[in-house]
Every structure is written in structure tokens, then in C-alpha cells.
């Protein structure tokens, strides 16, 4: 059993699948609750898709580093990339109350992962984006269903 894994990958959509299997194996090995493993995989799908689609225009050697670790009572996902500077914590949330006719087709992924995470931190340092999502593993401490909208308004 190990309480951390780290991968460095070239951003491609196909990377999401192999990464997801690794996260599941890590979850099994550490007996993590399934919904938390699901949240990490959801976040990785969203973040890597965003990076591949928007993040690396003109970047010579695109790279994303992914670390998943258990830190005390928290499951911590960190992504570091050398793509365009982008602060997901500053992105405006979508209007989740809009009726079907007025729903924009995109913009949901970040809202979902930020809402599920107990803590989200973003830093830009030495030309690299570093995003950390923490999920509390102790159910009493976990906010889980936190409505993150207010802090963005």
C-alpha cells in the first residue's frame, strides 16, 4: 500500500482512461470511499479535457503532472501544468437555474469539481499552473455538498 502516486503525462484525451484506472487502483489499495474516488476521476477528466482543449496553444513541450495523495484525513489531487495561465477558482459559475432553452452547452465541469471539493487552491509560479483539490475523507468534516457559488459572486 502506498499513500501517494505521481504521473507526468503529455496532455491527450486518451490519457484520461489510463489515469482513471490508476486512481481506481489507488482507491482500492487504500480502501477509499467510492464517491471520493469518483470525484477525483471526475476532476481529472474535466481538468485534462480543459487543458487539452484550451490550455496549450503555442506551448512547445506540453506537460501535466498529476499527484494523488492521502494527507491525514484528506484525499488531495494536485495538477501542475506548463500551459496558459488559467485560474479555475476565478471562473464564473454557470447559471444552474436556467431553463433548458437557455442553458449554455459548456462551462459545467469546473463548477461541479469546485462544488464537490472541500478546499480548492490555485497558484501560478515559474510559468506553471498548480491546482490543488482537497476532499475530506472523514464524513463529519467533509462539506461535500457545499454550495461554492456565493464566494464567486
Amino acid at each position, binding site marked *: 500500500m502506498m499513500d501517494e502516486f505521481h504521473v507526468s503525462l503529455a496532455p491527450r484525451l*486518451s490519457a*484520461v482512461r489510463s489515469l482513471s484506472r490508476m486512481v481506481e487502483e489507488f482507491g482500492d489499495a487504500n480502501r477509499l470511499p467510492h464517491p471520493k474516488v469518483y470525484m477525483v476521476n471526475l476532476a481529472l*477528466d474535466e481538468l485534462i479535457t480543459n487543458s487539452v482543449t484550451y490550455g496549450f496553444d503555442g506551448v512547445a513541450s506540453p506537460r501535466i503532472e498529476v499527484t494523488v495523495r492521502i494527507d491525514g484525513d484528506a484525499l488531495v489531487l494536485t495538477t501542475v501544468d506548463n500551459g496558459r495561465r488559467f485560474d479555475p477558482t476565478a471562473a464564473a459559475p454557470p447559471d444552474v437555474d436556467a431553463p433548458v*432553452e437557455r442553458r449554455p452547452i*459548456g462551462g459545467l*465541469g469546473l*463548477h*461541479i469539481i469546485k462544488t464537490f471539493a472541500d478546499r480548492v487552491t490555485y497558484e501560478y509560479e515559474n510559468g506553471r499552473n498548480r491546482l490543488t483539490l482537497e476532499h475530506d475523507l472523514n464524513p463529519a468534516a467533509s462539506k461535500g455538498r457545499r454550495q461554492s457559488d456565493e464566494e464567486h459572486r
Partner: protein
Amino acid sequence: MNIEVAEERTDDALVLLPVGRLDSSNARAFESIVMERIGGGERRLIVDFSRLDFISSAGMRVLLIAAKALKTADGSLVLCAMKNHIQEVFRISGFDRIIPITESREAPANGSA
């Protein structure tokens, strides 16, 4: 990447059962299947989630496109048999308020007549 989608029919609806993962790598393939069925004249679609383990916003986007297309065509889209953690994602997104979600295929949709 492809996605396996089983299809079944009830008296008045086509039931689609995506299998495994519906994520950014195969959402386009799922979109083609769904839009082909709508283009072929299907007006009542049920997406049964019982064999789906994972959906990301790329997959949800396809459901939103289908819901919009069916609404324009006076049709309907219903989602059923979702696992709890998936239903939570739909709740956070507000999707549960724009696309009916039922326990099972037979259960009436919330809020429908």
C-alpha cells in the same frame, strides 16, 4: 473512442443503455448515436443509467443537447436508474431540474402530467 450502447424498446419509447464510462474520450461517439436516433424520428427517449459507472460533464453535455433537440421537436427525454454519486453530480449542476430523472424506467417522471 467508442462507447457500447445497448438499445431496448418500451411501448412508446426507445431506451438507450450506455455501458461503463461516458467521458470526454467517447462523448462524441455517444452524441452521434443519440442524434442519429432523434434524426431518425425517435421522439421519446429514455437513457437508462443502470450500466453506467461514470459520467463527466462531456457526457452530460450530450444529454443537454438531446434534451434541447427533443424539446424543439415536442418530444421528451427521461433519465433513469442513476447511481447515487451520479445523481449528486446532476443535482449540483441543476440538471435534475431541467431533465426528468426517475428511479426506474416504469416510474413516472417527477413533475410530468
